[in-house]
């Protein structure tokens, strides 16, 4: 059996890559994909702990996280389509209407 902490470290690396993407990129779609990366890293952590503790609760959480991620992707991409219709770009720096 592979130690649980290795899976946790892999999850941490993937989560940090997602953080890097959100902080440095300005293309809205790429930022969204980075968020999906972070969600997946957390899912991996949940399943690793579910096996470690021998309980199904972690798996149930992963199931609900997947459903919420699907809803979030649908609404978020619709927002980007609406943004593109108005601004002809999905560069998040251009969407500065509510910027102080």
């Amino acid at each position, binding site marked *: *059996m*592979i*130690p*649980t*902490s*290795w*899976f*946790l*470290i*892999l999850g*941490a*690396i*993937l*989560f940090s*890559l*997602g*953080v*890097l*993407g959100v*902080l*440095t*990129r300005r*293309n809205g*779609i*790429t930022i*969204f*994909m*980075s968020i*999906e*990366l972070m969600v*997946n890293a957390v*899912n*991996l952590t949940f*399943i690793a702990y*579910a*096996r470690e*503790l*021998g309980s*199904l609760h972690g*798996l*149930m959480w*992963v*199931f*609900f996280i*997947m459903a*919420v*991620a*699907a809803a*979030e992707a*649908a*609404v978020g*991409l*619709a927002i*980007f*389509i*609406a943004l*593109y*219709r108005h601004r002809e770009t*999905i*560069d998040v720096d251009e969407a500065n209407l509510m910027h102080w």
Partner: protein
Amino acid sequence: MFEYLIFFTFAAIAVIFSAIVVIHRNPVVSALALVVSFFSLAVMYVLLDAPFMAALQVIVYAGAIMVLFLFVIMLLNLAHTEEPITRPIQQFLGITAAASFAITIIYYLCKAAVLHTGGPAEFVSDARAIGVSMFEAYIFPFEAVSILLLAAIVGALILSQRTSAITEAKDGGAR
């Protein structure tokens, strides 16, 4: 031994392709690299004795969500939009923040390592066990998620329609 080989191979694939998702300038390449990353995470779930979750990962993420992403990229014709590299201070701060976050979290994971190999042997995570758990203990969150998905469908439709219902109602009132 074989297990370890699979783990390291697919961990390397997941990390490399996630890095491509973040670094590459073309969103189509990013989306396809994300699919590969999702598949290698599905392999991780199989290694963690959760084959049902692996199937779900492939169907929901690599199937549904990635098709959604690729459709939007195609719809907005983003394949050739390259973002120029600007704002060096912002980039530097982002990279520094992400790197320090990674170092901190990995340091504490190694310090408090969950190193005893092999959890309890009776970890069953087949579809039957998950279904029983979902429709007994988790029936309320299950229904809540179904309402959330319905709300998301309606919200996505309203947000992405060509002329919004609000402006149309205003125009109708003006006429």
